[in-house]
């Protein structure tokens, strides 16, 4: 077994594409679920709004990247308003049902052959071009010994982690403010907050919009990284990957979703690469598992780890045990 190779590829997965995209999506879910208690099961829909908004603005109207990304963010706000207006007055479960359905509707619509001219149908949008990488100030690889990054990876990481840091900072500033206090109070008991003169529905809308914007940023970064948009990247499991990352790291904590996302993709990559090596080298006999089957195992491992976490450390890695202990009350 090439353990250095496994380590290298695990570390790389922890800081590149998916880790960044899902850190952003999970920061959004943290605002929704971690702080406000909103069960948004359609974060993939917000990511799709960001990704397709950007993709369409670039390919259809030849907009530069920044305004195009702005259009993607705008679409996510529209989506939050569309989802929130009818459901935020209702109990939390309704939002969960509506959001999971809405995200699927979005994926089916952008995938539909009728809209191929705009969304590219099942092939997605491919002509996004190199605009993002043309702005890359890096020209050489960065070698850190165990792991090294290409110039393109470096550029993506600087922009992506830069955004993650900005989003974390925004979260930090907001949740320690009276605004954050209202959100956390809504998470505990809406009616109590209403009885104190706060417009609960409007606060929940603000939370849905803000978390949706963070999700859309994740979608935008995904688009820019791969210079394309694929509809099936926004299937339902995408939302639950982000949720897994959030729960792993600890909901209701500023660092929770970020560390959770890095760990989630680290675990996925580690399991996947070790198994493939094991099978290739004959350490794992074909009678136990073949290469195709090994593809499914990382998710199983992530699931088992999450289960173990829920049993032994319910609050996640960063969570506050004292808070979780109050759940029974």
């Amino acid at each position: 077994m090439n353990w250095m190779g496994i380590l290298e590829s695990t570390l790389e997965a922890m800081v590149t594409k998916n880790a960044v995209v899902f850190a952003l999506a999970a920061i959004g879910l943290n605002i929704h679920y971690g702080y406000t208690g909103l069960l948004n099961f359609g974060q993939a829909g917000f990511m799709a709004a960001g990704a397709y908004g950007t993709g369409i603005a670039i390919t259809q109207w030849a907009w530069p990247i920044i305004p195009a990304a702005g259009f993607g963010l705008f679409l996510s706000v529209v989506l939050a308003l569309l989802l929130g207006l009818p459901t935020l007055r209702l109990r939390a479960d309704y939002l969960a049902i509506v959001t999971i359905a809405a995200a699927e509707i979005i994926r089916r619509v952008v995938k539909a052959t009728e809209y191929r001219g705009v969304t590219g149908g099942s092939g997605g949008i491919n002509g996004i071009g190199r605009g993002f990488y043309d702005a890359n100030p890096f020209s050489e690889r960065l070698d850190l010994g165990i792991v090294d990054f290409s110039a393109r990876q470096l550029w993506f990481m600087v922009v992506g982690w830069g955004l993650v840091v900005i989003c974390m900072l925004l979260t930090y500033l907001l949740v320690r403010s009276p605004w954050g206090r209202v959100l956390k109070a809504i998470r505990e008991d809406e009616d109590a907050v209403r009885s104190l003169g706060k417009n609960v529905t409007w606060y929940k809308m603000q939370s849905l919009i803000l978390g949706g914007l963070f999700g859309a940023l994740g979608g935008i970064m995904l688009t820019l990284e791969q210079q394309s948009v694929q509809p099936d990247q926004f299937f339902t499991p995408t939302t639950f990957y982000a949720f897994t990352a959030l729960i792993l790291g600890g909901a209701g904590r500023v660092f929770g979703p970020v560390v959770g996302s890095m760990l989630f993709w680290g675990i996925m990559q580690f399991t996947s690469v070790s198994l493939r090596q094991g099978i290739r080298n004959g350490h794992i006999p074909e009678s136990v598992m073949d290469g195709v089957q090994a593809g499914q195992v990382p998710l199983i491992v992530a699931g088992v780890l999450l289960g173990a976490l829920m049993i032994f450390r319910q609050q996640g890695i960063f969570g506050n045990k004292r808070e979780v202990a109050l759940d029974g009350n």
Partner: protein
Amino acid sequence: MATDAFDDVEPRPGSPKRDTILSVDGLVRRFGGITAVDVDHLEIQANAITGLIGPNGAGKTTFFNLITGFDEVTAGTFQFKGERLEGVPAYKVARKGLVRTFQLTKALSKLSVIDNMKLGAVGQTGENPFKAMVRPLWVNQEREIEARADELLKRFKLYDKRDDYAGELSGGQRKLLEMARALMADPEVICLDEPMAGVNPALTQSLLQHVKQLKDEGLTVIFVEHDMDVVRDISDWVVVMAEGAIIAEGSHASIGKNQAVIDAYLGTSHEIDLGTIQLDPETH
């Protein structure tokens, strides 16, 4: 212990008060075929403690829900300081100065006691998401609010617990916290839904004193309560509901002798002890 304000008030349902802060007309709430509340006319005297009693299912909590905007009226009107409030959402009713507490205490478990208190303050600059990001815009106001919250916590003997999670308080302490938090919203009328339920006897006395003090500070208190000793102890005026309607009004002494009230209670729950009211109505 009827105070002067009630001296010339007739003890009958719907009687006019000298200084009415809240009045209700033809208020009806139906759930399907069931009429939960059907109040013809009721006036609440300002700066007094009005007890709302009645057997289980009389519609007391529904009545509270209606006048605080937590439920929608089927028909009828109610006015707070001369302003009609039916159809106004709960949060706006609270901002106008009509604040309630809940039968099942709603302490916000995962917020600290002091955060529970600070949440109660209205008109906070930092509750706007854009201003929230700039700490200097709200930090001074926050300090003022915190000072006011600390004062109230000391008064309610919760100051030692200020940094604990509200979920770590005992049931009675949560009742105290909820009352103190409601005061942070600067109410004119405070509606307490069974403030003594589940509170141990030692704490009951302290809660009663707090309720009396609210009146001394100029507030109007309306409360729902099952414990007749409590009702006798603190209420200036008692309103009796049964099957959604107001069947009697008066001082606790006159209520105890009212045949309609006795029938309403005995018809539904024999174990309610009305005797204490009849036996010594002039105590206090």
